[in-house]
């Protein structure tokens, strides 16, 4: 069996495909969820740091001069953004600007370049801030952020010793670099500030995730982190997912294979048994124990079918063997007589005797062949008979008449009791039943016996009975009486008796008509055959 056609392989293939889809879908979803989750956490961290940065900046920048930032500082104002439902950017100004008086706290840090002598007012976009070589402290010089800016909290939040440290960059409202943390990468560009007063946001840029914020005065604060960590974590997660998914897939396939094998085992069993039966072991059976399961029922059905086929084959073989046997005897006679006649010169009377014997044997063969042909026709097309309305009484009357000579020879009295019994059937075939039964009755009844033919009509249909007062038939023979080649009376000489097909033919004709043919007999009392036709509709 090719793999493509094997049910087991097809089940396995579909199972594998389904499993792959489910596991793949699950992995992709899990990966995306995890990615989103990681980003959200990162963003939260960034915002946390941004607000800390803002808070530190205003403390330090106002710093000097301004009052310490109270609880209503921008940090507080922004914190809820990281925790609560994230407001859209439009809300930010409202929050940021909520405390009107706080406005004054957002002092421009580098508003007066001349005053502070801050970093050169070059185009900040053109000139990246010196941060690696120029430590913020030193490059800021006196104009750097106030001393309190780098407090312990900031160091903890932007610890450059972390494997992937957070960094910050700040710009003045004019766009010049104010400050950067040690870990900040080069080339951090200030986010475009269309309306710096109200802008905040998160961006992903060349492998970095950055959150930025414009203070109301216009300074830009930016906190960022390399995406390498996220990528690495997502990579690990992807590998784990792939590993787990692969294992589940393999396990699922194995379990599927096992289930398919289990499910297919009875089929294989049935198939093997059927193969052996097909090879000629007709007595073999599937014999399943699980007769209640679907396959068990199938096996039982197949067993029943095989049993019937086996029986049919046996019957056929026995029939053929019997027929051959019946034909061999007359052939033996003809061959033997011819051989004898030809073996030497003989008198004309010897030849005549030989021919007579051959003729008898040939007639017997002829009768046998006719019977066999008739049976085979009845077997091949039992219902293809010409059906007409007829009357059993008329048929019986005609054939009783034909039997009178034979009955008279044995001094047998033929009596009739014929009521009109209309039925539908093939009158030739029904007449043959009557003739066969009558001939048997006369042939097997002793001298002086009586043979009685009755027809009548009852609610069930037309009925014909032929009874004799002969020796009767032993009960053990009755069930086999209608079998082909069965002879109840073994002592009967075969040259006078038929081949044992007459009653079989009668039965076959009755079956084809939907009629029943039954026998009732008592030893010493006589035998009665009853033909019961189906009712005429």
């Amino acid at each position: 069996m090719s793999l493509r056609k094997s049910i087991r392989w097809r089940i396995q293939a579909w199972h594998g495909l389904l499993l792959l889809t489910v596991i793949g879908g699950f992995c992709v979803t899990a990966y995306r969820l995890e990615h989103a989750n990681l980003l959200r956490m990162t963003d939260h961290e960034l915002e946390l740091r941004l607000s800390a940065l803002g808070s530190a900046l205003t403390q330090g920048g106002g710093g000097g001069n301004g009052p310490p930032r109270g609880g209503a500082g921008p940090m507080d104002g922004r914190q809820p953004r990281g925790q609560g439902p994230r407001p859209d950017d439009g809300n930010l100004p409202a929050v940021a600007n909520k405390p009107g008086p706080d406005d004054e706290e957002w002092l421009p840090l580098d508003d007066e370049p001349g005053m502070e002598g801050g970093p050169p007012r070059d185009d900040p976009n053109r000139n990246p801030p010196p941060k690696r070589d120029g430590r913020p402290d030193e490059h800021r010089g006196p104009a750097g952020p106030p001393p309190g800016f780098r407090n312990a909290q900031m160091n903890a939040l932007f610890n450059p010793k972390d494997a992937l440290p957070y960094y910050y960059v700040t710009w003045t409202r004019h766009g010049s670099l104010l400050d950067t943390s040690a870990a900040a990468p080069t080339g951090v560009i200030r986010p475009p500030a269309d309306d710096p007063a109200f802008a905040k946001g998160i961006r992903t840029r060349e492998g970095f995730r950055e959150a930025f914020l414009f203070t109301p005065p216009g300074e830009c604060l930016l906190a960022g982190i390399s995406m390498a960590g996220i990528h690495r974590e997502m990579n690990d997660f992807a590998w784990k997912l792939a590993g787990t998914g692969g294992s589940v897939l393999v396990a699922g396939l194995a379990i599927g294979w096992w289930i398919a094998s289990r499910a297919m085992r009875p089929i294989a069993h049935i198939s093997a048994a059927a193969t052996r039966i097909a090879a000629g072991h007709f007595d073999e059976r599937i014999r399943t124990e699980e007769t209640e399961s679907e396959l068990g029922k199938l096996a039982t059905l197949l067993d029943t079918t095989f049993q019937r086929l086996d029986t049919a084959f046996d019957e056929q073989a026995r029939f053929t063997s019997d027929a051959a046997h019946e034909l061999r005897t007359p052939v033996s006679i003809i061959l033997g007589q011819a051989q004898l006649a030809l073996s030497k010169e003989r008198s004309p009377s010897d030849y005549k005797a030989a021919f007579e014997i051959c003729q008898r044997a040939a007639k017997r063969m002829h009768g046998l062949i006719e019977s066999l042909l008739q049976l085979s026709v009845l077997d091949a097309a039992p219902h293809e008979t010409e059906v007409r309305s007829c009357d059993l009484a008329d048929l019986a009357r005609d054939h009783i008449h034909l039997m009178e000579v034979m009955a008279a020879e044995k001094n047998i009295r033929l009596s009739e009791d014929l009521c009109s019994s209309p039925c539908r059937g093939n009158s030739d075939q029904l007449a043959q039943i009557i003739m066969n039964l009558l001939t048997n009755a006369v042939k097997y009844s002793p001298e002086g016996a009586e043979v009685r033919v009755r027809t009548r009509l009852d609610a069930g249909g037309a009925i014909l009975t032929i009874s004799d007062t002969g020796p009767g038939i032993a009960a053990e023979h009755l069930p086999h009486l209608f079998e082909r080649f069965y002879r109840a009376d073994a002592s009967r000489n075969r040259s006078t008796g038929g081949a044992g097909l007459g009653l079989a033919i009668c039965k076959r004709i009755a079956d084809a008509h939907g009629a029943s043919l039954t026998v009732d007999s008592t030893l010493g009392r006589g035998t009665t055959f009853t033909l019961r036709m189906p009712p005429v509709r």
Partner: protein
Amino acid sequence: MRVLVVEDEPDLLGTLVQAMREEGHAVDEAADGEEALYKAVEWDYDAIILDVMLPRMDGFEVLKRLRQKKKTPVLMLTARTKVNDRIQGLDSGADDYILKPVDLDELAARVRALIRRSQGDASHLIRVGEVEVDTSARKATLGGQPVALTGREYALLEFMVSRRGKIVSRTDLYEHLHDENDTPMSNLVDVHVFNLRKKFGAAFITTLRGQGYSIEA
């Protein structure tokens, strides 16, 4: 030799009996199993041809019961081609079997072979001194010269030669050379013996007074 033919089909029985008679055997017939068993036990047949399908008692049963009493060679006649039937026949004590339709020449040859084997002869040629008997061709020679014999004379010669070295009583001769329908005329045996002595020499058959005849081995 005396042969019993058992067959229930009268025309076939007649054919077989005629064929066996023309082979020179004395033939009895039986049409059913019981008659066959009775005759087979009652008489010492040289061979029995037994059909399997018989009324009253089938051939296998007849054979089984016969074997409890006698070793008469039996050839089964069967129309059944199944190996099982043949095996069953041979196992119940049949010495040979032949299938219907029967070839009469083959049947005759098998009966001859059966009889020959039962008497311990391996060949169809039996030699006694100058005399040679060919049981297959049913002919005898004396010193290489063919001797003309009637059917009865040959039958007596073959019977005596097959029992050479033994005393054969007049009753034995009578019973094996005549069938059940022959009229008992015992002196006919003496006539045939007289004729055989004339053809093969007076010393060929010795008379043992009060016991019978004998041919020296």
